[in-house]
């Protein structure tokens, strides 16, 4: 596994991560279903994770991978809370459409 990275410059990983992150942003702006928006947030977290692992590998520094581990921890906690909030919203409004949640709209 030593010379695997010789043929792959770090720029490829940067472009891949940027692409996946932008697709996540697009999904948050594009869709109106709260569950899909939530999944797109997970996708963005994953894009950043991938870039951190790539940089940690290229720099030979373990710190990046430890931080990816902590990002996964926070993402798991966030999903548990977020889906519970989503269930509560559904119980009150009978839908997961974010356009029904316009009480704070100016």
């Amino acid at each position, binding site marked *: 596994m030593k010379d695997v990275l010789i043929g792959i410059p770090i720029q490829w990983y940067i472009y891949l991560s940027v692409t996946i*992150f932008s*697709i996540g942003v697009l999904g948050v702006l594009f869709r109106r279903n709260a*569950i899909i928006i939530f999944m797109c947030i997970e996708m963005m977290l994953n894009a950043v*994770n991938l870039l951190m692992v790539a*940089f940690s*590998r290229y720099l030979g520094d373990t710190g990046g991978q430890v931080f990816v*581990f902590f990002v996964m*921890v926070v993402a798991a906690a966030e999903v548990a*809370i977020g*889906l519970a909030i989503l269930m509560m919203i559904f119980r009150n409004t009978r839908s997961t459409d974010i356009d029904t949640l316009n009480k704070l709209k100016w």
Partner: protein
Amino acid sequence: MLAQYLFFFLSFVAVFSALMVIIDKNPVHSVLYLIITFFAIAGHFFLLNAQFLGAVHIIVYAGAIMVLFLYVIMMLNLNKEIEPHKKNIPKVIAVISAGLLMICLVAVLIGAERTMLPAARDSNIGLVENLGKVLFREYMLPFEISSVLFLAAMVGAVMLGKKEIH
């Protein structure tokens, strides 16, 4: 050479299924496409020789988080197209803004071409042994605090999920 082919294959799978997540109208299909994306990203982790993170990624994301999503979709009975047809202007604006963001990020990062990093000598930093040593020596306190975070999340999820008493 094989690594490059693998990189392109995994990248294509990841980007394609990430696009299908936001294109597909059915939430269940979106979840399944997102699982494919996560597996592709786990493949990238293995390609980068981050074996511990690859395994944890599959277990946590594809195993736990996506099952949670599927459970919620099942309990809310959303397995059909419920999204009403909306006006096209917000969608066009969304596509334009996301495209602009991507162009900006790429434009910023193209300048970093010259600072290309050499491949590190030590390729074993992603193994369980090395990562565990760093995690339990230098990052001991954050590790313990994250368990408190999990406890808080657990209590919060139970509190939020409880039936309201009128």
